[in-house]
């Protein structure tokens, strides 16, 4: 879940195109690596010798154009290396310390389950039964799931919270056989989690697309409330005869592969 950038990387650029008439040299690095307008870029022979420098005239996220002198433009060839002159500014793109992340998490398979239950009234005259409840499958997923995370990007870590709101379940069944009363059983549920992740693997460079594999720990609190209300078909009278709460605390390992795209928003 984290964008990882190595601040100490030297983002050397390569000359892509030379426009002698306009004295412009196009290179394959841009704003995202500190190649921003008015910064000085120096060009190098393959041997490493400095040919000369010029100033960035314009740059996009991944490309720049450098204006150089007439004398220099004739020395620059496609394929030669270019670097920001100021070593400190070579890392001009300082990855932000922090990023705020909004996430929606549609559940494909839920790691927490519960059943839908309905009252199973004993037959008249029966003194002992095995159970008073009939069960059927509960919700497969939470229709509303969202997360908010803080990414401490330079430290490759992320701390987040997640909430899940489940659709309420309701069942109705006879309360006493051959009686006008029935029992309405309602289940409401939601869960909240806090998680911590660290980027265990990432592709090396900052590019438009990057893959990251995050590993972490997830602590979830899941709460379900059961309310059984005895109601009468005839009189409409109702009484709550069951009220129960189930709390589940779950520790999970998180494995989170992620592919991201970087967009320039200037």
């Amino acid at each position, binding site marked *: 879940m984290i964008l990882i950038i190595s601040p100490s990387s030297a983002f050397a650029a390569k000359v892509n195109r030379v426009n002698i008439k306009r004295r412009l040299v196009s290179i394959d690095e841009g704003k995202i690596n500190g190649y921003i307008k008015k910064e000085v870029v120096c060009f190098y022979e393959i041997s490493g010798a400095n040919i000369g420098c010029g100033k960035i005239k314009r740059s996009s996220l991944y490309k720049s154009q450098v204006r150089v002198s007439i004398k220099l433009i004739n020395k620059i060839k496609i394929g030669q290396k270019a670097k920001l002159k100021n070593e400190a500014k070579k890392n001009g793109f300082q990855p932000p310390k922090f990023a705020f992340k909004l996430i929606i998490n549609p559940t494909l398979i839920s790691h927490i389950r519960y059943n839908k239950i309905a009252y199973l009234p004993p037959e008249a005259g029966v003194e002992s039964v095995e159970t008073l409840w009939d069960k059927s499958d509960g919700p497969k997923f939470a229709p509303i799931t969202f997360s908010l995370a803080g990414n401490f990007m330079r430290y490759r870590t992320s701390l987040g919270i997640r909430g899940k709101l489940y659709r309420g379940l309701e069942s109705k069944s006879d309360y006493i056989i051959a009686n006008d009363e029935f029992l309405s059983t309602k289940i409401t549920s939601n869960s909240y989690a806090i998680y911590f992740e660290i980027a265990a693997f990432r592709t090396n460079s900052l590019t438009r697309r990057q893959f990251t594999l995050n590993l972490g720990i997830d602590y979830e609190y899941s709460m379900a409330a059961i309310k059984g209300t005895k109601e009468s078909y005839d009189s409409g009278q109702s009484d709550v005869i*069951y009220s129960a709460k189930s709390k589940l605390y779950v520790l999970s390992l998180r494995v989170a592969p992620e592919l991201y795209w970087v967009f320039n928003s200037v």
Partner: protein
Amino acid sequence: MGVQFSIISIGLNVLIPFSATNEFTIDESDDENKHKVNDPEKDLKDRFDHNTNSLGIELAISYSIPF
């Protein structure tokens, strides 16, 4: 010197539970049939079965705003 950009990502969250604790309480029970089962609380708890599966998978679609 910062560069303004934003990040959109898509990924999966695989959750593998390894520890779970369940607290189940009945606050109110006026069921006139409850004496017909051995342990009404255990009966309701067992049938409700609030527990974990072996794993969970979520899709994660995100938008990040760096500061």
